[in-house]
Structures are given as structure tokens and as C-alpha cells.
């Protein structure tokens, strides 16, 4: 059997990671692999297909990068939710027609 692989499967716990985080991470890696994503018993299963066969070491490297990215995406989601209110305040102030830089005082609450 050849050592080189064209596919591999990575599984994420759906209780821990969101489907969206996994999808976004797969998108970022679309040059390295295409992913068929499905949910089986609350497990997010990703079948990765590589454009050219990879050695065991190469496959592990790609899988690790993918896992790290899923974790990053998950953290980004948390951060996004946690900072949504303050982000809206900042954006509203920054792009309001009046206030901040001109005549009208604007409170920050």
C-alpha cells in the first residue's frame, strides 16, 4: 500500500465547536484540501481530499493546521458575541452624521 494519502478524516465534537467555525476553517484551507462536512451523532465529520497525495507527515501537518484554525475560529466567534454591543456603539458613533468630530456632543452610552 502506498504511504501517500489523498484523503483523511478529521472529527470535531459538535458540543464544543460550532459548525460555522469548522466551515470557516475549511474555507481558509481550500488550497490545501476540499472538505466534505457532515454531522453524525453530534460529531462534525470532515473528509479532507488533498489535490496531490501527501505523506503521513504532510497529512498530519495539514490536519494540525486545520485543527488550530478551527480553535481560532471558535475563539473568534466567542469574541464576536462578547463584543457585539460595544462594537455597535463604536460603529454608530464613528459613522453617525453628527457628533464626535463636529458640533454635537454625543454620549458614549
Amino acid at each position, binding site marked *: 500500500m502506498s504511504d501517500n494519502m489523498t484523503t483523511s478524516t478529521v472529527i470535531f465534537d459538535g458540543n464544543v465547536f460550532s459548525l460555522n467555525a469548522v466551515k470557516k476553517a475549511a474555507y481558509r484551507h*481550500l488550497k490545501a484540501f476540499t472538505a466534505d462536512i457532515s454531522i453524525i451523532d453530534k460529531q462534525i465529520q470532515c473528509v479532507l481530499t488533498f489535490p496531490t497525495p501527501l505523506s503521513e507527515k504532510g497529512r498530519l501537518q495539514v490536519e494540525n493546521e486545520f485543527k488550530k484554525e478551527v480553535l481560532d475560529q471558535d475563539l473568534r466567534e466567542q469574541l464576536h458575541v462578547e463584543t457585539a454591543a460595544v462594537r455597535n456603539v*463604536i460603529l454608530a458613533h464613528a459613522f453617525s452624521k453628527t457628533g464626535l468630530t463636529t458640533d454635537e456632543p454625543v454620549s*458614549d452610552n
Partner: protein
Amino acid sequence: MSQFQTIERYQPTRSTYQLLPFRFTPLDEHQYVLTNLAGEYIVLNRPSLHDLLAHRLSNVDPAYIDLRARHFLMDESAAITPTLLSLKLRTRYQRLAEFTGLHLFVVTLRCEHSCPYCQVSRRSQDTQRYDMTPEAANAALTLAFRSPSQHIKIEFQGGEPLLNFPLIQTIVLEAESRNQTLGKDLAFVIATNLALINDDILSFCRDHAILLSTSLDGPKDLHNANRPRPGGDSYERTVRGITLAREVLGHDRVSALMTTTEASLSRVHDIIDEYVAQSFNGIFLRPLSPYGFALKTRSYHAYNTERWLTFYRQGLDYIIELNRRGHDFAEYYASIILKKMFTSDDPGYVDLMSPAGIGIGAAVYNYDGSVYASDESRMLAEMGKDTFKLGHVLTHTYEDLFTSPALLDPLEESFAYSNPMCHDCAFEPYCGAEPVYHYAMHGDFVARKPESEFCRRNMETFRYLILKMENDPFAKRLFLQWANR
């Protein structure tokens, strides 16, 4: 009562802080770069990032102090932070309200050079068919002055614009006359290879404060190989023109741009040395754009982004060393990015704007009266794709042109803030949307960023600049100077 705080006040505490919106992207194996809404950045290692996000960071941790000072978190001592961030963000986008400040007039498509990579498809020097008419120029001027921008820069382009110098004179005189009542901050630039420069032209430029922007690709052999012309003396003419122009207009009234070709890639030191020898204060190490003959002759594909990045890094390292040895010399692409990193002032460089710079940053009035959203848009049109043609100076109003779907659709679709991958990319505040590039290369305004060479080139450049600053205090001081020029 003691005038000092109690010792407990200075004990590390588990702090209660609120996170502010920011984005993070890996910088290397171990570190991340974080940017806030205003584009300020900070570098953290992975454990510190995780501590920050989990609210585990102690308020005496040096990273905590930095994060608070740069608006990544706030606590009871920094409640003003959202207002400050709003102000910075507003300043950053101020240019949008100014609208189009740069107006490019393609006064002729004729050229006496025949550069194989030319980004504008050249035409024979002899035919008048490719000159802008005075009627079209007049209408274009009316449109340029309709822009709400207080700063109007009119840049004459070609072909070789000096082949139609009488029209340049007419436009300059008419613009000055109209501006007597409008009172705008008006500036003129001629983008010329200087081969045809003479005393009469220079006198006119001096009398009307016209800047000259020329092309210098490097040392003689490289420049002449890149820019064939009858007599094979492009370099000699350019250098002579630079000297003459400086004598008449002043040293700083002449700038130069280089074009990177396959032949340039192994010569970055020679190219920089040539700029130093010609007493320029800096260089713009440009990538080759994929338009015009560059794409037609496939010279764009002759090298890839990786090779350009090597060229760029070698060039930047060399320039840093020049400065370390006491020679004041800048790299302008880095300077634009650094200005975005360290100031709230957007330099308005069309390729690095989001919303895209098309139409907003620049408008192009082509020799035949067609109006395009950027210089690249008209280059694409020369290849038969007029997707970014906004209309015609003689048949469309200002409102027609600048609310045309050919402008608004790509602007809206390509806005990086809402594009996959760009949306959560820490480099988004420094990057651009570039719908024209992505349309030319991928057939749509956005493209998949993991496959985009534009994305790869910029992301690696941002990383390189930040890593340089992290590892070399001299480079950091130098880069801060460039940012604040």
C-alpha cells in the same frame, strides 16, 4: 491619612475587564497579531491570547497594560475607550466623504516606446486617432471639479502624454481659470518617460507648479531592456530628463516609479543603487500588474508571488541596511502600509482601500472620452473587458457616472469588511478590496481569498513588516519615521 495607596492596591488581581472588538491572525508559529477597529496592532503569543480571551489576564501583566493602552480591552480606568476608538475610526474613513481627489486624464494613447510589459496597450506614434479631443477634455474637467473633494489632483497620462502637450497646456490653463472662483487645492502631475522633455515644456511646468513623475526601472541595461525605443536610449533620455527637470523645477518636483519585470527579480540591489545614484529619497518596489500587454504576452505569469516576495524582502532588508549606515532612503509601499498601521490617516492608495479605491480614490478620463473607475479599469478595457466603464464624458452626467452600477456593484460586493476570510483577518485595516484585480484574474469582484495572489502577497508583506519591527528596534524606529512622513 496616608497619601499613599495601600499595598493591596499594587497586588496582582484577577481583573475584571471588558474585551473590545478586535481580530487576530497567526503571525508565525507561536505568535498572533491582533488589530482593533481603528487598525492599531499588538503581537501576543498564543497562551497570552487565550488568557486574554478567557479573562484570565492579570492587570499587572505587561501585556495587559499594552492591551488597555491600545484599546483591546477596557476596565474601570479606561471607560472613555469606545469614544476614542470611534474618533479614530471616523478619521480613518474621512477620505470617503471627500470622494474623488485624483483625476487621471489620458491625453493620448500614443507612445514612442514599445515596452513589452506595457500596461496600456500602446498605439503607433503617428496616428491622431488616439488623442483626447479638447471637447472631451473640457467635459472631463467639468466632472473633475464636481467632486466634493477640496483637493483636486489632475494627473496626465498616456501612452506618452508629452506627445499631446498642447492639450495638457489647454487643460491646465482652463483648470486654473475655473479654480479662481472655486478655490480648490489644485495640483497637476505629468506621468512621462521624459524622452521628449525640453526647455519649453519645463518652463510651462515651472510656471504652473506641475510635478513630473517618470519611470526608472533600474540601471541602464535593465531599463533599456525593459523599455525599447528607437535608438535604444531610453535610460540616457530619462536620466538626462531628470537632471534637466530638477534644474528647472527643483529637486523634489520630479519623482520616479519602477516597474518590476522578470529581469528585475534578481537585481533588487542594483535597482535600489540606481535610485540612490540618481539622488532619489526612496523607491516604490512595485509588483507587476496583470493588465494590458503584461497579461497578453503572459509576462505576468513568468514569475510568481513567491519570487516577488523574495525580491521585496531582499530589497527592504537592503534599504534598512542603507539607513543603518546613515543613508536616509525609504520604501514607499511599506510606508503606505505603515501609515495605515500607525496613524489614523488613510493615505488613499487605491490598491489598499476598502471600500475599494475605484471611483472613490480616482477616476480616469480616457483619450476617447470614456470614464473608468481606475487606471487598472481602463487597462482592462484595452484588453476588451469594459466592466468598469462608468460612461462617457459627453453623454453622461456626474450623477450618472458616480452612481452607475459599474461602480456601485463592485464597491459593495468587494467591501473587505464583509468578505469571507477578510472579515476576520487581522490585516483587513491595512489591506484593500481590489475588485478590478480580482475580476481580471478570477472573473469576479471578490474571489476566494485563499486562492488570491493579491491576498497572499499582502498578507506576507504585512507579516514581514510586523516581524521586522518585533525583532529589530532600529527597523521599528525607521518604520515609524516612514509612517509619519
